[in-house]
């Protein structure tokens, strides 16, 4: 009986995919997820160009530039963290993930507290307006702006949580230089969120005449 069981176990193990096979499947699955999400973001972009046309709301272009720079910088630190894990450099991995999560939080605060201005604040530094005036009820400008930035901010928030979970798991020694799919997945997701903003930033802040 035990011989039959052992034979059955061997048979089951021989059908288990290798780590490399699992990794290929995981990567393909994640990229397919990105592709499916692309339809959502593309629809928002189409809505912006269809409804706004050659106009755009009065927004602080400098604030948009700063937010974009912060997000790009966070992508760099995520890349650095992933590269560090791939080469067994845990210290750089942990610092990279934490800095990226911090910069992501700064971006999120920039959108929610400054651009959305949920507390109705006012202020400026060196002539740069720090807080937005646009409300969700301000016609197509407000509706499209809040739909685009809201959907993106939701992804930023989930990305920050993802980065922090991976950072914590890395701290506990859950990843190695050979096997760190979790780190790669979090990094890919974060870069994807960055890529979406690369298109949203000019569409919201730079294209069209303010009015």
């Amino acid at each position: 009986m035990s011989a039959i069981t052992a034979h059955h176990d061997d048979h089951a193990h021989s059908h288990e995919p290798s780590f490399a096979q699992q990794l290929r499947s995981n990567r393909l699955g994640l990229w397919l997820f990105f592709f499916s999400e692309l339809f959502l973001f593309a629809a928002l972009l189409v809505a912006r160009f269809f409804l706004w046309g050659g106009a755009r709301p009065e927004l602080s272009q400098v604030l948009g530039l700063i937010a974009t720079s912060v997000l790009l910088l966070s992508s760099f630190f995520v890349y650095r963290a992933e590269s560090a894990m791939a080469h067994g450099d845990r210290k750089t991995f942990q610092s990279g993930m934490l800095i990226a999560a911090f910069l992501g939080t700064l971006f999120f605060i920039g959108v929610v507290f400054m651009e959305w201005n949920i507390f109705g604040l006012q202020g400026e530094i060196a002539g740069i307006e720090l807080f937005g005036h646009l409300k969700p009820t301000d016609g197509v400008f407000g509706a499209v702006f809040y739909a685009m930035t809201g959907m993106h901010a939701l992804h930023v928030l989930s990305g920050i949580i993802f980065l922090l979970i991976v950072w914590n798991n890395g701290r506990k020694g859950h990843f190695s230089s050979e096997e760190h799919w979790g780190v790669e997945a979090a990094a890919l997701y974060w870069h994807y969120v960055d890529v979406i903003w690369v298109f949203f930033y000019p569409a919201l802040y730079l294209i069209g005449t303010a009015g």
Partner: protein
Amino acid sequence: MNDKKAAAYRLGFTTLGILAVLTAVEYIVGVYIPNPAVWLIILALVKAGIIVQNFMHIARLWREESH
């Protein structure tokens, strides 16, 4: 620091530098050039391509490799 790690970090710095320059150009084009839509879309596509290629390693999808 081994060569592969140094090369990976160097790629990160180079990519960040290129993205910073393109973002600055994007801002200048958007603020100072009339009807900048086409230029801005081209710049966004270039920036996205660089991120997808250098940070997201899209080539891994069709390469036989582990980590």
